[in-house]
């Protein structure tokens, strides 16, 4: 029913994710994990559409695969 608000939604999602990445562990995986969590909140409040979280999950999964199966870590 409510229209999405991209500017507010993305600002909240990315801003909170950066803040919590800074507080916890400063790496790219952590950033995407926090992005996923706050993306969930923003989507729940209907500020952004659902596919934002799905996209974030896909990106997170790709990074995780890359990390787990990279020769450097093995």
């Amino acid at each position, binding site marked *: 029913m*409510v*229209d999405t608000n991209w500017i507010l939604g993305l600002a909240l999602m990315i801003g909170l994710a950066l803040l919590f990445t800074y507080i916890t*562990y400063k790496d790219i995986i952590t950033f995407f*994990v926090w992005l996923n969590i706050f993306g*969930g*909140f923003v989507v729940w*409040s209907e500020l952004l559409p659902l596919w934002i979280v799905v996209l974030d*999950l896909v990106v997170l999964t790709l990074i*995780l695969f890359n990390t787990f199966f990279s020769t450097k870590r093995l």
Partner: protein
Amino acid sequence: MSAGTDNPSGWTDIESGADRVNTALNDSGTKELVVQIFSSVGADSNNSLFKNDFNLNSERLNITLGLFFPTLTGTLTRFNFEVKSLSNSLVVWFEIRATGHLRWYTSNPPGTFITLRTNLTVGIYYEFNIYIDYSTDISVLRLKENLVHTGTFINKLTNIGKTGLKSILATATYTDGNIISEIDYIGIYDNGSSIAKDLGYVVLDLHKDSHYLNSIHNNLATINMSGNFELIYASYIGPPFPIYLLDSAFGSITDGFVIMNENSRLFNFYDDGTIRFDPLLVAFLNNGSKGFKFNSVILEGAKMTEGSNTYWLEYSHSNILTNTSFFKVDNSNRLTFNLTANDSDLEFIQANFNINNVQTLDRAVSFQSKKNNLAYGELRLLYPSVSDIIEIPNNIATSRTIISQNQTLTEFIFLFSDNDITAINGITSGYIKNLRLDIISNLSTTIITLTLLGMIIPLILIITPTFIFSNRLGKESVVPLFLIFSLIFTATETIPIWLFFIIAFSSLVFIFTNKDKMVK
């Protein structure tokens, strides 16, 4: 207008501000505008103008007609003005053809026309004074252009004046284009005094295109969903006059009627319960009515346009389309319904109102309603791709609901069903009134503010204890604590369960990817 010195036969000219009928037409397609002063057809069959019926003081009758074309961009097929005798023969007949020629019919010799004027011009007031002499059987047409006398034409009549007249009728037929014309100053005068009392009426077809006036007369006529009219007019002076709402089958004048409230300019609509298709609004002129104009008919919040603003009724079964199953507007301006369905099938009654171009941004719909517990009722608002459904509560209630934003509203539907209940004679009834599309300023902003609050409050509830505990337990405890509090708020239904799964999944990713850092 004032008494003139150019009167050929000693007639007293009409006084300034005499009885008049103002009307105007702005239509596309072939349209007809009828101004009928009196007629021997239909309900007025006994209303012929006999010489002695209206206290004619002399043997002479003066009929006056004013014509004005503010614009003439389309095609005026024909304008007719005719006066018929009791024997149905034409006493006076003149016509304006598409070519702009003004022709005057003469009965002697019969069937011949004299062209009086060519190229009638936009923006000029034409005034026709027709004098009928009962004693000498002579009619005189006098033409004024912008109040200047430009011609006198005399026609010998054939024994029509001795008995009386049958009808006086002005009709205008247009095809295509965008024409605004006014028929003005119609009056019947006997020795300078108007005798047009309770005689004239003007018809407005509610289903035709908007009836505009030119910008000088900024009037409006509105009709809202609950069925009451609001007419705003420019030039009305005088006591209240009746306005009737009739079916397109023009004939009965005893149907619902409207009595004007002089102060508020609101017309209270009283209805006899007849369901009207293709309604006509008819205003009768009483003694003292100086004139009025109709303008566009507006559905509240939506302007009615030809061919697109319609309403229709649907029933689940032809058997229930009876006198006991109906929608009607009652005398309290309520859209009432009654559904009688004694069988065990699920029956419904539905009224669809087709409207156009109502943007829903910042709008809420509100209405008052009543229905008994047996019925199911809903108001459905249709947009091009989606719809809002608002369930109508039981008993007396006032509902106000924010509707889908950034949509174009195309249709209202009232749907009532018997809920498949056969008890208590299967009769369900109720009403809806005061349906409005309210504009709530800054509604969109309010909605975003509310959703933002809805998000931030649980977020603070989760984060605050997490960080309070993590101050004691160390930085590594942030993610597990976040997970625990998410679980708590999911259990208390503060956040939805799918959000908890995202948090849980993410927290697990944290724990696995940062395992080495956490054990340090």
